[in-house]
């Protein structure tokens, strides 16, 4: 029997001698990871939702009444040159009236044909990286310095609320992630500690015969790797199955990319190796 065969046999002994412990560990880790996966999907989906809403966020810049129409192209050019502004669209008084009619459903300005009271404005399309409270405020400050601008409007409160919600989701995810990783680590360490304690006598004898720490540790490290990696992968398989079975009319579930999932499973497998080492550390002293 080669060393590798011996190590693999030890690994299989660990698993089939304590199937309940191994299965319990696998299931508890899988459900922990599934919880995290679900949160990941929910966070990704809500992020996509917010991003889509944010992309529709514009800034309206109203032009002072006394400004002559002839100077508008120069103002449009100057506003378009402000950092963060993607494009500028001019809204004339008649166009503003059309928009209002479209929104309300009737023309509220019948009889005001010669004295349209609606202001002229520019609709600014903002670069995605500036669609933040800080970015938008910076653009607002820059444009409001101009004397030919009477007012600037954008959904400031909604943006603040959206940012606060996204930050909450992100922070909660981070805390949940740390908590789940810690729970997974403790659970896996205890499982490996239990199965290694059951074989302490054999361990001691192997060491007396000259077995090295690495030789003794490897089966437990592989066990940790397998349980960590497979339970993480099983969690994602359940998510994929659920995604195929459940469809939402209003939005689509955003699942991480295959590369992200593989990195996640790999990280959990590494976590398993660490838990394997921590589980038998005392026995190796």
């Amino acid at each position, binding site marked *: *029997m*080669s*060393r590798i065969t*011996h190590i693999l*046999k*030890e690994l299989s*002994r660990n698993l089939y*001698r304590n199937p309940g412990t191994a299965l319990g560990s696998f299931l508890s880790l899988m459900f922990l990871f599934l919880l995290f996966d679900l949160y990941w999907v929910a966070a990704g989906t809500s992020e996509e939702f917010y991003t889509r809403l944010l992309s529709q966020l514009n800034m309206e810049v109203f032009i002072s009444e006394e400004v002559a129409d002839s100077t508008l192209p120069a103002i449009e050019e100057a506003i378009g040159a402000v950092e963060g502004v993607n494009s500028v669209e001019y809204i004339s008084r008649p166009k503003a009236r059309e928009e209002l009619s479209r929104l309300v459903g009737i023309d509220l300005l019948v009889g005001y044909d010669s004295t349209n009271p609606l202001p002229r404005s520019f609709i600014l399309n903002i670069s995605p990286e500036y669609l933040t409270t800080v970015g938008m405020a910076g653009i607002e400050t820059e444009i409001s310095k101009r004397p030919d601008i009477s007012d600037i409007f954008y959904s400031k409160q909604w943006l603040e609320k959206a940012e606060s919600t996204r930050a909450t989701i992100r922070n909660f995810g981070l805390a949940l992630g740390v908590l789940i990783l810690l729970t997974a680590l403790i659970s896996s360490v205890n499982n490996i500690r239990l199965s290694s304690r059951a*074989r302490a*006598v*054999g361990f001691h*004898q*192997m*060491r*007396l*015969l*000259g*077995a*090295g720490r690495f*030789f003794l540790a490897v089966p437990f490290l592989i066990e940790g790797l397998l349980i960590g990696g497979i339970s993480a992968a099983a969690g994602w398989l359940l998510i994929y199955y659920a995604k195929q079975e459940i469809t939402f009319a209003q939005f689509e579930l955003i699942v991480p990319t295959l590369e992200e999932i593989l990195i996640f499973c790999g990280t959990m497998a590494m976590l398993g190796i660490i838990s394997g080492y921590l589980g038998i550390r005392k026995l190796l002293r």
Partner: protein
Amino acid sequence: MAQNVVVELNNVYLKSDRGGQVFRDLSFKLEAGGTAVITGAAGSGKTSLAELVIGLQLAQSGSVEVMGETIRPVKAKIIKRNRRKIGGVGGIFDLMPSLTVAENITFPLVLSGERRKVQRERLLKMLTEFSLLKQAGEYPRSLTRVENTLVQLARASVAHQPLILIDEPLAGLDRKTYQRIFEYLISVSLSGRSMIILSSDTLPQQLPNADYYQIVDGALV
């Protein structure tokens, strides 16, 4: 230490975990191919001597050299290497409960990385020599005490370990097994391998090439 010396203890002082003095200025030398029979009352320190040799305990002062290497706590690799050259039977040595008899016997060969063919050949030889063919696939829990001792002896010989350390080899054996194990001890003694026998009682028969010692008040006389 000379090349032909397998174990050498010089002026060793050792305290037990409880603080009592186990060895006081103990010195001992075993040359290659030699046999040392060390007797002593229960608690006199026979097992502690075995533990010193395999590096399980470290002397408070004095030196312990095994196979030309000084046993020190920082030299874990040396301790590990030396342990592979020692075949241990009885006392602190036991079988590994999760391995079968065959796996227990070949374990030293697995550690030394012997080829499978060699492992099979040596295993067959040991199983035949110690009449353990029927028990090859069994686990230690189903063995009798005598069979357990025989498996340990087979394991201690399978890798041609240059030093065999036997703790209480003949205690509680029936006459037939006693004679058989004693014959084995004689064959080892004549084989050119070194052997340390630790026993509470003096051996009723003389072993060839053997030096006899007794542990009295923490020293060898």
